[in-house]
Protein backbone atom coordinates (compact mmCIF):
# COMPACT_ATOMS: atom_id res chain seq x y z
CA UNK A 1 0.00 0.00 0.00
CA UNK A 2 1.00 3.54 -0.57
CA UNK A 3 0.82 4.39 3.16
CA UNK A 4 4.36 3.31 3.79
CA UNK A 5 5.85 5.43 1.03
CA UNK A 6 3.99 8.56 2.05
CA UNK A 7 6.12 11.56 2.90
CA UNK A 8 4.67 15.04 3.52
CA UNK A 9 5.82 17.68 1.08
CA UNK A 10 6.57 20.48 3.52
CA UNK A 11 9.52 20.51 5.91
CA UNK A 12 7.19 21.25 8.85
CA UNK A 13 4.93 18.40 7.79
CA UNK A 14 7.86 16.01 7.67
CA UNK A 15 9.12 17.19 11.06
CA UNK A 16 5.66 16.65 12.60
CA UNK A 17 4.95 13.38 10.81
CA UNK A 18 8.24 11.84 11.96
CA UNK A 19 7.14 12.49 15.54
CA UNK A 20 3.41 11.68 15.24
CA UNK A 21 2.42 10.11 11.90
CA UNK A 22 -1.03 11.75 11.76
CA UNK A 23 -0.41 12.91 8.21
CA UNK A 24 0.32 9.34 7.18
CA UNK A 25 -3.05 8.37 8.70
CA UNK A 26 -4.81 11.20 6.85
CA UNK A 27 -3.14 10.09 3.63
CA UNK A 28 -4.20 6.49 4.22
CA UNK A 29 -7.82 7.58 4.76
CA UNK A 30 -7.76 9.76 1.62
CA UNK A 31 -6.16 7.26 -0.72
CA UNK A 32 -7.81 4.18 0.83
CA UNK A 33 -8.65 1.95 -2.15
CA UNK A 34 -12.39 1.25 -2.28
CA UNK A 35 -14.23 -1.16 -4.60
CA UNK A 36 -15.61 0.91 -7.42
CA UNK A 37 -18.94 -0.90 -7.54
CA UNK A 38 -20.13 0.09 -4.04
CA UNK A 39 -23.83 0.97 -4.18
CA UNK A 40 -25.83 3.33 -1.95
CA UNK A 41 -26.36 0.65 0.71
CA UNK A 42 -22.67 1.18 1.48
CA UNK A 43 -23.19 4.82 2.45
CA UNK A 44 -24.73 4.00 5.83
CA UNK A 45 -21.38 3.71 7.60
CA UNK A 46 -20.83 7.41 6.98
CA UNK A 47 -24.43 8.19 7.89
CA UNK A 48 -24.02 6.33 11.18
CA UNK A 49 -20.90 8.32 12.01
CA UNK A 50 -22.93 11.47 11.42
CA UNK A 51 -25.69 10.13 13.71
CA UNK A 52 -23.22 9.39 16.53
CA UNK A 53 -21.66 12.85 16.31
CA UNK A 54 -25.13 14.47 16.23
CA UNK A 55 -26.21 12.56 19.33
CA UNK A 56 -23.03 13.48 21.20
CA UNK A 57 -23.25 17.20 20.37
CA UNK A 58 -26.99 17.54 21.08
CA UNK A 59 -26.61 15.35 24.17
CA UNK A 60 -23.83 17.55 25.56
CA UNK A 61 -25.93 20.68 25.08
CA UNK A 62 -29.02 19.06 26.64
CA UNK A 63 -26.94 18.01 29.64
CA UNK A 64 -26.20 21.68 30.30
CA UNK A 65 -29.90 22.23 31.07
CA UNK A 66 -31.14 18.86 32.28
CA UNK A 67 -31.33 18.01 36.00
CA UNK A 68 -30.91 14.34 36.90
CA UNK A 69 -33.17 14.18 39.92
CA UNK A 70 -36.47 12.31 40.35
CA UNK A 71 -38.20 15.49 41.56
CA UNK A 72 -36.83 17.79 38.89
CA UNK A 73 -36.04 15.75 35.78
CA UNK A 74 -39.50 15.95 34.22
CA UNK A 75 -39.73 19.67 34.91
CA UNK A 76 -36.25 20.34 33.57
CA UNK A 77 -37.13 18.64 30.27
CA UNK A 78 -40.21 20.86 29.99
CA UNK A 79 -37.94 23.78 30.85
CA UNK A 80 -35.71 22.79 27.94
CA UNK A 81 -38.74 22.58 25.66
CA UNK A 82 -40.28 25.91 26.66
CA UNK A 83 -37.63 28.24 28.10
CA UNK A 84 -34.19 27.34 26.80
CA UNK A 85 -33.33 29.09 23.51
CA UNK A 86 -33.80 26.52 20.75
CA UNK A 87 -34.16 23.90 23.48
CA UNK A 88 -37.11 22.34 21.64
CA UNK A 89 -34.97 21.97 18.52
CA UNK A 90 -32.02 20.43 20.30
CA UNK A 91 -34.22 17.99 22.21
CA UNK A 92 -36.24 16.98 19.15
CA UNK A 93 -33.02 16.40 17.19
CA UNK A 94 -31.69 14.26 20.04
CA UNK A 95 -34.90 12.25 20.53
CA UNK A 96 -35.54 11.69 16.82
CA UNK A 97 -31.81 11.27 16.28
CA UNK A 98 -31.97 8.06 18.31
CA UNK A 99 -34.62 6.71 15.94
CA UNK A 100 -32.64 7.82 12.88
CA UNK A 101 -29.54 6.16 14.34
CA UNK A 102 -31.40 2.85 14.64
CA UNK A 103 -32.99 3.21 11.20
CA UNK A 104 -29.52 3.61 9.72
CA UNK A 105 -28.00 0.79 11.77
CA UNK A 106 -30.74 -1.65 10.72
CA UNK A 107 -30.14 -0.83 7.05
CA UNK A 108 -26.39 -1.20 7.67
CA UNK A 109 -26.88 -4.61 9.36
CA UNK A 110 -29.24 -5.92 6.68
CA UNK A 111 -26.79 -4.71 4.02
CA UNK A 112 -24.20 -6.95 5.67
CA UNK A 113 -26.64 -9.85 5.76
CA UNK A 114 -27.46 -9.52 2.06
CA UNK A 115 -23.91 -9.17 0.77
CA UNK A 116 -22.30 -11.54 3.30
CA UNK A 117 -20.05 -8.82 4.69
CA UNK A 118 -19.77 -10.70 8.01
CA UNK A 119 -17.88 -13.63 6.44
CA UNK A 120 -14.15 -14.27 6.60
CA UNK A 121 -11.98 -12.27 6.79
CA UNK A 122 -14.39 -9.70 8.26
CA UNK A 123 -15.70 -11.54 11.36
CA UNK A 124 -14.07 -9.14 13.82
CA UNK A 125 -15.58 -6.11 12.09
CA UNK A 126 -18.97 -7.81 12.40
CA UNK A 127 -18.58 -8.74 16.07
CA UNK A 128 -17.43 -5.22 17.00
CA UNK A 129 -20.52 -4.04 15.14
CA UNK A 130 -22.75 -6.27 17.28
CA UNK A 131 -21.14 -4.88 20.45
CA UNK A 132 -21.79 -1.34 19.17
CA UNK A 133 -25.41 -2.32 18.48
CA UNK A 134 -25.81 -3.68 22.04
CA UNK A 135 -24.32 -0.48 23.49
CA UNK A 136 -26.66 1.57 21.29
CA UNK A 137 -29.64 -0.28 22.75
CA UNK A 138 -28.38 0.29 26.29
CA UNK A 139 -27.79 4.00 25.60
CA UNK A 140 -31.20 4.41 23.96
CA UNK A 141 -32.99 2.64 26.80
CA UNK A 142 -31.29 4.71 29.51
CA UNK A 143 -31.79 7.91 27.55
CA UNK A 144 -35.50 7.18 27.35
CA UNK A 145 -35.63 6.96 31.16
CA UNK A 146 -34.16 10.43 31.70
CA UNK A 147 -37.29 12.58 30.99
CA UNK A 148 -38.90 10.68 33.91
CA UNK A 149 -42.30 10.34 32.28
CA UNK A 150 -44.65 7.39 32.72
CA UNK A 151 -43.09 5.38 29.88
CA UNK A 152 -39.62 6.24 31.18
CA UNK A 153 -40.46 4.94 34.62
CA UNK A 154 -42.34 1.82 33.63
CA UNK A 155 -40.02 0.99 30.76
CA UNK A 156 -37.15 1.15 33.25
CA UNK A 157 -39.10 -1.03 35.69
CA UNK A 158 -39.92 -3.70 33.12
CA UNK A 159 -36.47 -3.85 31.52
CA UNK A 160 -34.53 -3.92 34.80
CA UNK A 161 -36.93 -6.60 36.05
CA UNK A 162 -35.72 -8.81 33.19
CA UNK A 163 -32.68 -9.49 35.38
CA UNK A 164 -34.92 -10.87 38.14
CA UNK A 165 -35.44 -13.89 35.87
CA UNK A 166 -31.89 -15.04 36.72
CA UNK A 167 -32.18 -17.84 39.30
CA UNK A 168 -30.97 -17.16 42.87
CA UNK A 169 -29.11 -13.87 42.34
CA UNK A 170 -31.71 -12.17 40.10
CA UNK A 171 -33.52 -10.20 42.81
CA UNK A 172 -30.22 -9.05 44.30
CA UNK A 173 -29.02 -7.84 40.92
CA UNK A 174 -32.23 -5.86 40.35
CA UNK A 175 -31.94 -4.18 43.77
CA UNK A 176 -28.31 -3.40 42.96
CA UNK A 177 -29.25 -1.90 39.59
CA UNK A 178 -31.97 0.22 41.19
CA UNK A 179 -29.98 1.28 44.25
CA UNK A 180 -33.21 0.78 46.19
CA UNK A 181 -36.36 -1.32 46.28
CA UNK A 182 -37.89 0.25 43.19
CA UNK A 183 -36.87 2.47 40.28
CA UNK A 184 -36.18 5.81 41.97
CA UNK A 185 -33.74 8.69 42.20
CA UNK A 186 -30.59 6.52 42.57
CA UNK A 187 -31.64 4.67 39.41
CA UNK A 188 -32.10 7.93 37.51
CA UNK A 189 -28.72 9.40 38.45
CA UNK A 190 -26.79 6.25 37.51
CA UNK A 191 -28.69 5.91 34.23
CA UNK A 192 -27.78 9.51 33.41
CA UNK A 193 -24.12 8.79 34.14
CA UNK A 194 -24.08 5.68 31.96
CA UNK A 195 -26.10 7.35 29.21
CA UNK A 196 -23.41 10.04 29.13
CA UNK A 197 -20.58 7.48 29.09
CA UNK A 198 -21.79 4.98 26.48
CA UNK A 199 -21.58 7.21 23.37
CA UNK A 200 -17.89 7.68 24.02
CA UNK A 201 -17.43 3.92 24.36
CA UNK A 202 -19.26 3.58 21.05
CA UNK A 203 -16.97 6.20 19.49
CA UNK A 204 -13.95 4.14 20.59
CA UNK A 205 -15.46 0.97 19.15
CA UNK A 206 -16.27 2.78 15.90
CA UNK A 207 -12.55 3.53 15.53
CA UNK A 208 -11.79 -0.18 16.03
CA UNK A 209 -14.63 -1.07 13.62
CA UNK A 210 -13.10 1.12 10.90
CA UNK A 211 -9.56 -0.01 11.69
CA UNK A 212 -10.62 -3.64 11.35
CA UNK A 213 -12.39 -2.71 8.10
CA UNK A 214 -9.26 -1.13 6.65
CA UNK A 215 -7.25 -4.34 7.08
CA UNK A 216 -9.10 -6.46 4.46
CA UNK A 217 -10.86 -3.47 2.87
CA UNK A 218 -14.55 -3.14 1.97
CA UNK A 219 -16.69 -6.00 0.82
CA UNK A 220 -18.65 -5.14 -2.34
CA UNK A 221 -21.92 -6.05 -4.08
CA UNK A 222 -20.23 -8.84 -6.04
CA UNK A 223 -18.73 -10.15 -2.80
CA UNK A 224 -15.40 -11.24 -4.27
CA UNK A 225 -11.89 -10.52 -3.00
CA UNK A 226 -10.29 -7.83 -5.10
CA UNK A 227 -6.73 -6.67 -5.58
CA UNK A 228 -6.02 -3.34 -3.87
CA UNK A 229 -5.22 -0.96 -5.33
CA UNK A 230 -6.15 -2.04 -8.83
CA UNK A 231 -8.49 -1.10 -11.65
CA UNK A 232 -11.26 -2.55 -9.44
CA UNK A 233 -10.76 0.22 -6.87
CA UNK A 234 -11.07 3.97 -6.60
CA UNK A 235 -9.52 6.19 -3.92
CA UNK A 236 -11.85 6.98 -1.01
CA UNK A 237 -11.43 10.68 -1.69
CA UNK A 238 -13.07 12.14 -3.69
CA UNK A 239 -15.15 9.25 -5.11
CA UNK A 240 -16.67 7.75 -1.95
CA UNK A 241 -16.64 11.01 -0.02
CA UNK A 242 -18.94 12.60 -2.62
CA UNK A 243 -21.20 9.57 -2.80
CA UNK A 244 -21.44 9.32 1.02
CA UNK A 245 -22.06 13.06 1.17
CA UNK A 246 -24.95 12.89 -1.27
CA UNK A 247 -26.53 9.95 0.59
CA UNK A 248 -26.10 11.82 3.88
CA UNK A 249 -27.94 14.79 2.42
CA UNK A 250 -30.87 12.56 1.43
CA UNK A 251 -30.83 11.03 4.90
CA UNK A 252 -30.87 14.47 6.51
CA UNK A 253 -34.05 15.32 4.59
CA UNK A 254 -35.80 12.36 6.23
CA UNK A 255 -34.27 13.33 9.58
CA UNK A 256 -35.45 16.94 9.22
CA UNK A 257 -38.94 15.78 8.24
CA UNK A 258 -39.32 14.01 11.58
CA UNK A 259 -37.75 16.82 13.62
CA UNK A 260 -39.78 19.64 12.07
CA UNK A 261 -43.06 18.05 11.03
CA UNK A 262 -43.81 15.08 13.30
CA UNK A 263 -41.35 15.29 16.21
CA UNK A 264 -43.49 13.15 18.51
CA UNK A 265 -44.77 10.49 16.16
CA UNK A 266 -42.10 7.99 17.21
CA UNK A 267 -42.62 8.64 20.93
CA UNK A 268 -45.49 7.85 23.29
CA UNK A 269 -47.99 10.36 24.62
CA UNK A 270 -47.74 8.70 28.04
CA UNK A 271 -44.23 10.07 28.42
CA UNK A 272 -45.63 13.59 28.75
CA UNK A 273 -47.17 12.46 32.06
CA UNK A 274 -44.76 12.61 34.98
CA UNK A 275 -43.62 9.27 36.42
CA UNK A 276 -46.07 7.80 38.93
CA UNK A 277 -44.99 4.65 40.79
CA UNK A 278 -48.61 3.91 41.75
CA UNK A 279 -50.09 3.55 38.27
CA UNK A 280 -48.85 1.57 35.28
CA UNK A 281 -49.90 2.88 31.84
CA UNK A 282 -52.52 0.64 30.22
CA UNK A 283 -50.22 -0.41 27.40
CA UNK A 284 -46.46 -0.45 27.86
CA UNK A 285 -44.57 -0.43 24.58
CA UNK A 286 -40.85 0.09 24.04
CA UNK A 287 -39.52 2.35 21.30
CA UNK A 288 -40.05 1.00 17.78
CA UNK A 289 -36.44 -0.14 17.32
CA UNK A 290 -36.71 -2.61 20.20
CA UNK A 291 -40.11 -4.04 19.25
CA UNK A 292 -38.97 -7.25 17.46
CA UNK A 293 -37.03 -8.33 20.54
CA UNK A 294 -39.92 -7.35 22.80
CA UNK A 295 -42.20 -9.57 20.71
CA UNK A 296 -39.78 -12.47 21.15
CA UNK A 297 -39.72 -11.88 24.92
CA UNK A 298 -43.49 -11.98 25.15
CA UNK A 299 -43.97 -14.94 22.84
CA UNK A 300 -42.42 -17.29 25.41
CA UNK A 301 -44.82 -18.10 28.27
CA UNK A 302 -42.00 -18.70 30.79
CA UNK A 303 -40.28 -15.72 32.41
CA UNK A 304 -36.69 -17.01 32.41
CA UNK A 305 -36.94 -18.66 28.98
CA UNK A 306 -38.49 -15.49 27.54
CA UNK A 307 -35.50 -13.45 28.67
CA UNK A 308 -33.11 -16.12 27.39
CA UNK A 309 -34.86 -16.16 24.00
CA UNK A 310 -34.69 -12.39 23.71
CA UNK A 311 -30.98 -12.22 24.53
CA UNK A 312 -30.22 -15.18 22.25
CA UNK A 313 -31.97 -13.43 19.38
CA UNK A 314 -29.32 -10.69 19.57
CA UNK A 315 -26.31 -12.77 20.53
CA UNK A 316 -26.95 -15.34 17.80
CA UNK A 317 -25.87 -12.64 15.36
CA UNK A 318 -22.34 -12.77 16.78
CA UNK A 319 -22.12 -16.44 15.73
CA UNK A 320 -23.41 -15.70 12.24
CA UNK A 321 -20.01 -15.89 10.45
CA UNK A 322 -19.83 -19.54 11.53
CA UNK A 323 -23.50 -20.41 11.14
CA UNK A 324 -23.50 -19.35 7.50
CA UNK A 325 -21.49 -22.14 5.88
CA UNK A 326 -21.61 -20.83 2.32
CA UNK A 327 -18.31 -19.79 0.74
CA UNK A 328 -20.10 -17.31 -1.51
CA UNK A 329 -20.59 -13.91 0.13
CA UNK A 330 -23.05 -11.98 -2.00
CA UNK A 331 -26.71 -13.01 -2.17
CA UNK A 332 -26.57 -11.95 -5.83
CA UNK A 333 -25.02 -15.36 -6.57
CA UNK A 334 -27.12 -17.29 -4.02
CA UNK A 335 -30.62 -17.73 -5.49
CA UNK A 336 -32.01 -19.65 -2.50
CA UNK A 337 -30.37 -17.58 0.20
CA UNK A 338 -31.77 -14.47 -1.44
CA UNK A 339 -35.31 -15.74 -0.92
CA UNK A 340 -34.66 -16.74 2.68
CA UNK A 341 -33.08 -13.33 3.23
CA UNK A 342 -36.29 -11.56 2.25
CA UNK A 343 -38.36 -13.96 4.36
CA UNK A 344 -36.14 -13.02 7.33
CA UNK A 345 -36.67 -9.31 6.62
CA UNK A 346 -40.43 -9.91 6.56
CA UNK A 347 -40.19 -12.03 9.73
CA UNK A 348 -38.40 -9.25 11.64
CA UNK A 349 -40.91 -6.65 10.41
CA UNK A 350 -43.79 -8.89 11.52
CA UNK A 351 -42.15 -9.32 14.94
CA UNK A 352 -41.82 -5.54 15.15
CA UNK A 353 -45.50 -5.06 14.36
CA UNK A 354 -46.60 -7.74 16.82
CA UNK A 355 -44.37 -6.21 19.51
CA UNK A 356 -46.54 -3.11 19.44
CA UNK A 357 -49.78 -5.10 19.74
CA UNK A 358 -51.27 -6.67 22.89
CA UNK A 359 -49.89 -10.14 23.67
CA UNK A 360 -53.05 -12.18 23.24
CA UNK A 361 -55.04 -14.32 20.81
CA UNK A 362 -53.94 -14.34 17.19
CA UNK A 363 -51.12 -11.86 17.83
CA UNK A 364 -49.56 -14.26 20.31
CA UNK A 365 -49.79 -17.13 17.84
CA UNK A 366 -48.17 -15.11 15.05
CA UNK A 367 -45.45 -13.94 17.47
CA UNK A 368 -44.64 -17.55 18.34
CA UNK A 369 -44.42 -18.66 14.72
CA UNK A 370 -42.28 -15.65 13.80
CA UNK A 371 -39.99 -16.21 16.80
CA UNK A 372 -39.55 -19.86 15.89
CA UNK A 373 -38.78 -18.92 12.29
CA UNK A 374 -36.20 -16.33 13.38
CA UNK A 375 -34.16 -18.98 15.18
CA UNK A 376 -34.81 -21.53 12.45
CA UNK A 377 -33.28 -19.16 9.90
CA UNK A 378 -30.00 -18.84 11.77
CA UNK A 379 -29.68 -22.27 13.36
CA UNK A 380 -31.02 -24.58 10.64
CA UNK A 381 -31.55 -22.89 7.28
CA UNK A 382 -28.23 -21.03 7.03
CA UNK A 383 -25.97 -23.96 7.99
CA UNK A 384 -27.76 -26.37 5.61
CA UNK A 385 -28.02 -23.87 2.78
CA UNK A 386 -24.24 -23.57 2.56
CA UNK A 387 -24.01 -27.24 1.61
CA UNK A 388 -27.17 -27.70 -0.44
CA UNK A 389 -27.45 -24.50 -2.45
CA UNK A 390 -26.35 -24.40 -6.08
CA UNK A 391 -24.73 -21.00 -6.37
CA UNK A 392 -24.26 -19.05 -9.59
CA UNK A 393 -20.84 -18.53 -11.16
CA UNK A 394 -18.97 -15.66 -9.54
CA UNK A 395 -16.95 -13.22 -11.67
CA UNK A 396 -13.17 -13.10 -11.22
CA UNK A 397 -13.05 -9.35 -10.81
CA UNK A 398 -15.35 -6.34 -10.78
CA UNK A 399 -14.05 -5.00 -14.07
CA UNK A 400 -13.80 -8.22 -16.02
CA UNK A 401 -17.52 -8.83 -16.66
CA UNK A 402 -17.86 -5.39 -18.26
CA UNK A 403 -14.83 -5.93 -20.50
CA UNK A 404 -15.88 -9.52 -21.21
CA UNK A 405 -14.41 -12.76 -19.96
CA UNK A 406 -16.42 -13.77 -16.92
CA UNK A 407 -20.15 -13.44 -16.22
CA UNK A 408 -21.45 -10.10 -15.03
CA UNK A 409 -24.41 -9.47 -12.73
CA UNK A 410 -26.97 -9.11 -15.52
CA UNK A 411 -25.73 -12.30 -17.13
CA UNK A 412 -25.91 -14.10 -13.81
CA UNK A 413 -29.50 -13.02 -13.30
CA UNK A 414 -30.36 -14.02 -16.85
CA UNK A 415 -28.84 -17.46 -16.33
CA UNK A 416 -30.75 -17.87 -13.10
CA UNK A 417 -34.07 -17.13 -14.78
CA UNK A 418 -33.25 -19.80 -17.36
CA UNK A 419 -32.63 -22.38 -14.61
CA UNK A 420 -36.07 -21.63 -13.16
Amino acid at each position, binding site marked *: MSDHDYRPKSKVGQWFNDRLPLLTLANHLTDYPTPKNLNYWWTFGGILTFCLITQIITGLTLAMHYIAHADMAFESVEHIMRDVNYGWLIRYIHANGASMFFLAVYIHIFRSLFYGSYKAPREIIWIIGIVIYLLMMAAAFMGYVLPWGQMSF*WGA*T*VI*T*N*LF*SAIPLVGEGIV*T*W*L*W*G*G*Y*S*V*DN*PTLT*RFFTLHYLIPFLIAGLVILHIWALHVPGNNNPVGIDIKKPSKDTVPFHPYIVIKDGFALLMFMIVFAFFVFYTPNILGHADNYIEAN*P*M*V*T*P*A*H*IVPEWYLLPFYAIL*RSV*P*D*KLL*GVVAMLSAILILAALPWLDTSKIRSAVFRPLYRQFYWILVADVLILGYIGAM*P*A*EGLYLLIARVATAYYFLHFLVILPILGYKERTLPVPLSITEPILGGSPNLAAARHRESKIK
Partner: protein
Amino acid sequence: MSDKKPKKRRDFLFTATTAVGAVGAAAVVWPMVDQMNPDASVKALASTEVDVSSVQPGNTITVLWRGKPVFIRRRTQEEIEEARSVKMEELIHPEKDEDRAKNPEWLVMLGVCTHLGCVPLNDKGDYNGWFCPCHGSHYDTSGRIRKGPAPWNMEVPKYEFVNANTIKIG
Protein backbone atom coordinates in the same frame (compact mmCIF):
# COMPACT_ATOMS: atom_id res chain seq x y z
CA MET B 1 3.39 -26.40 35.85
CA SER B 2 5.55 -28.32 33.41
CA ASP B 3 7.58 -31.18 34.79
CA LYS B 4 10.72 -30.22 32.93
CA LYS B 5 11.11 -26.89 34.65
CA PRO B 6 11.74 -27.27 38.38
CA LYS B 7 9.86 -24.82 40.58
CA LYS B 8 12.06 -22.02 41.64
CA ARG B 9 12.07 -19.30 44.20
CA ARG B 10 11.25 -16.85 41.39
CA ASP B 11 8.06 -18.80 40.47
CA PHE B 12 6.92 -18.57 44.06
CA LEU B 13 7.54 -14.83 44.05
CA PHE B 14 5.52 -14.40 40.82
CA THR B 15 2.59 -16.38 42.23
CA ALA B 16 2.67 -14.57 45.56
CA THR B 17 2.85 -11.14 43.89
CA THR B 18 -0.05 -11.95 41.56
CA ALA B 19 -2.14 -13.25 44.48
CA VAL B 20 -1.53 -10.14 46.58
CA GLY B 21 -2.25 -7.97 43.54
CA ALA B 22 -5.53 -9.78 42.89
CA VAL B 23 -6.66 -9.40 46.50
CA GLY B 24 -5.72 -5.72 46.40
CA ALA B 25 -7.63 -5.18 43.15
CA ALA B 26 -10.70 -6.97 44.55
CA ALA B 27 -10.55 -4.81 47.68
CA VAL B 28 -10.68 -1.70 45.49
CA VAL B 29 -13.36 -3.04 43.11
CA TRP B 30 -15.82 -4.07 45.83
CA PRO B 31 -16.53 -0.53 47.14
CA MET B 32 -17.07 0.55 43.54
CA VAL B 33 -19.65 -2.22 43.08
CA ASP B 34 -21.28 -1.95 46.50
CA GLN B 35 -21.85 1.82 46.24
CA MET B 36 -24.67 0.99 43.83
CA ASN B 37 -26.60 -1.04 46.44
CA PRO B 38 -29.39 0.65 48.46
CA ASP B 39 -27.82 3.33 50.67
CA ALA B 40 -28.47 3.99 54.36
CA SER B 41 -31.15 6.62 53.68
CA VAL B 42 -33.07 4.24 51.42
CA LYS B 43 -32.86 1.43 53.96
CA ALA B 44 -34.01 3.80 56.72
CA LEU B 45 -37.45 4.16 55.10
CA ALA B 46 -38.24 0.64 56.21
CA SER B 47 -41.77 0.88 57.62
CA THR B 48 -44.96 2.85 57.11
CA GLU B 49 -48.23 3.05 59.08
CA VAL B 50 -51.59 3.20 57.33
CA ASP B 51 -55.01 4.15 58.71
CA VAL B 52 -57.53 1.75 57.17
CA SER B 53 -60.65 2.79 59.10
CA SER B 54 -62.30 4.38 56.05
CA VAL B 55 -61.90 1.39 53.73
CA GLN B 56 -65.25 -0.25 52.91
CA PRO B 57 -65.63 -3.96 52.10
CA GLY B 58 -64.88 -4.61 48.45
CA ASN B 59 -62.54 -1.62 48.22
CA THR B 60 -58.78 -1.42 47.85
CA ILE B 61 -56.42 1.35 48.84
CA THR B 62 -52.91 1.65 47.48
CA VAL B 63 -50.09 3.04 49.59
CA LEU B 64 -46.43 3.55 48.80
CA TRP B 65 -43.89 1.54 50.78
CA ARG B 66 -40.20 1.54 49.84
CA GLY B 67 -41.18 3.15 46.52
CA LYS B 68 -43.51 0.28 45.72
CA PRO B 69 -47.32 0.26 45.76
CA VAL B 70 -48.94 -1.88 48.47
CA PHE B 71 -52.53 -3.04 47.96
CA ILE B 72 -54.69 -3.14 51.09
CA ARG B 73 -58.00 -4.76 50.22
CA ARG B 74 -60.94 -5.22 52.52
CA ARG B 75 -62.39 -8.35 51.00
CA THR B 76 -66.08 -9.25 50.80
CA GLN B 77 -67.37 -12.55 52.14
CA GLU B 78 -67.70 -13.98 48.58
CA GLU B 79 -64.11 -13.09 47.76
CA ILE B 80 -62.85 -14.79 50.89
CA GLU B 81 -64.86 -17.92 50.15
CA GLU B 82 -63.69 -17.92 46.55
CA ALA B 83 -60.06 -17.63 47.66
CA ARG B 84 -60.35 -20.34 50.31
CA SER B 85 -62.21 -22.88 48.19
CA VAL B 86 -59.49 -23.18 45.52
CA LYS B 87 -57.73 -26.54 45.42
CA MET B 88 -53.95 -26.40 45.81
CA GLU B 89 -53.43 -28.50 42.65
CA GLU B 90 -54.96 -25.74 40.52
CA LEU B 91 -52.38 -23.17 41.60
CA ILE B 92 -49.19 -22.29 39.75
CA HIS B 93 -47.57 -21.18 43.00
CA PRO B 94 -49.47 -23.10 45.70
CA GLU B 95 -50.10 -21.02 48.82
CA LYS B 96 -53.08 -21.26 51.17
CA ASP B 97 -55.21 -18.14 51.46
CA GLU B 98 -55.11 -18.68 55.23
CA ASP B 99 -51.34 -18.12 55.11
CA ARG B 100 -51.59 -15.05 52.90
CA ALA B 101 -54.33 -13.26 54.82
CA LYS B 102 -54.18 -14.04 58.52
CA ASN B 103 -57.16 -11.77 59.09
CA PRO B 104 -59.34 -13.01 56.20
CA GLU B 105 -61.04 -9.67 55.72
CA TRP B 106 -57.75 -7.89 55.00
CA LEU B 107 -55.45 -8.78 52.14
CA VAL B 108 -52.17 -6.86 52.25
CA MET B 109 -49.67 -7.43 49.45
CA LEU B 110 -47.18 -5.69 47.19
CA GLY B 111 -49.03 -4.39 44.15
CA VAL B 112 -46.21 -5.51 41.93
CA CYS B 113 -46.63 -8.12 39.23
CA THR B 114 -43.99 -10.81 39.74
CA HIS B 115 -43.38 -10.97 36.00
CA LEU B 116 -41.71 -7.65 35.22
CA GLY B 117 -42.89 -5.33 37.96
CA CYS B 118 -45.95 -3.51 36.59
CA VAL B 119 -48.86 -2.57 38.86
CA PRO B 120 -51.82 -4.92 38.22
CA LEU B 121 -55.33 -3.48 37.87
CA ASN B 122 -58.00 -3.99 40.50
CA ASP B 123 -61.19 -6.06 39.99
CA LYS B 124 -60.05 -7.29 36.60
CA GLY B 125 -59.06 -10.53 34.96
CA ASP B 126 -60.51 -14.01 34.67
CA TYR B 127 -60.32 -14.69 38.43
CA ASN B 128 -62.05 -11.56 39.82
CA GLY B 129 -58.82 -10.41 41.39
CA TRP B 130 -56.14 -8.48 39.55
CA PHE B 131 -54.96 -8.29 35.97
CA CYS B 132 -51.57 -7.02 34.82
CA PRO B 133 -51.96 -4.96 31.64
CA CYS B 134 -48.31 -5.26 30.66
CA HIS B 135 -48.06 -8.92 29.73
CA GLY B 136 -51.41 -10.37 30.72
CA SER B 137 -51.04 -12.08 34.12
CA HIS B 138 -54.26 -12.94 35.98
CA TYR B 139 -54.39 -13.03 39.79
CA ASP B 140 -57.22 -14.33 41.99
CA THR B 141 -58.92 -12.75 45.02
CA SER B 142 -55.97 -13.86 47.14
CA GLY B 143 -53.44 -12.24 44.76
CA ARG B 144 -52.27 -15.64 43.58
CA ILE B 145 -51.08 -16.10 40.01
CA ARG B 146 -53.55 -18.19 38.01
CA LYS B 147 -52.78 -17.49 34.37
CA GLY B 148 -50.07 -15.68 32.38
CA PRO B 149 -46.29 -15.30 32.41
CA ALA B 150 -45.80 -14.27 36.08
CA PRO B 151 -44.07 -17.05 38.03
CA TRP B 152 -45.22 -16.27 41.61
CA ASN B 153 -48.09 -14.92 43.65
CA MET B 154 -47.98 -11.26 44.56
CA GLU B 155 -45.71 -10.93 47.58
CA VAL B 156 -47.17 -10.46 51.05
CA PRO B 157 -44.87 -8.08 52.96
CA LYS B 158 -44.24 -8.21 56.69
CA TYR B 159 -47.07 -6.28 58.33
CA GLU B 160 -49.06 -6.13 61.55
CA PHE B 161 -52.18 -4.52 62.97
CA VAL B 162 -51.00 -1.93 65.46
CA ASN B 163 -54.64 -1.50 66.50
CA ALA B 164 -58.00 -2.24 64.87
CA ASN B 165 -57.65 0.65 62.41
CA THR B 166 -53.92 0.86 61.72
CA ILE B 167 -51.66 -1.42 59.71
CA LYS B 168 -47.89 -1.13 60.01
CA ILE B 169 -46.07 -2.35 56.91
CA GLY B 170 -42.40 -3.32 57.16
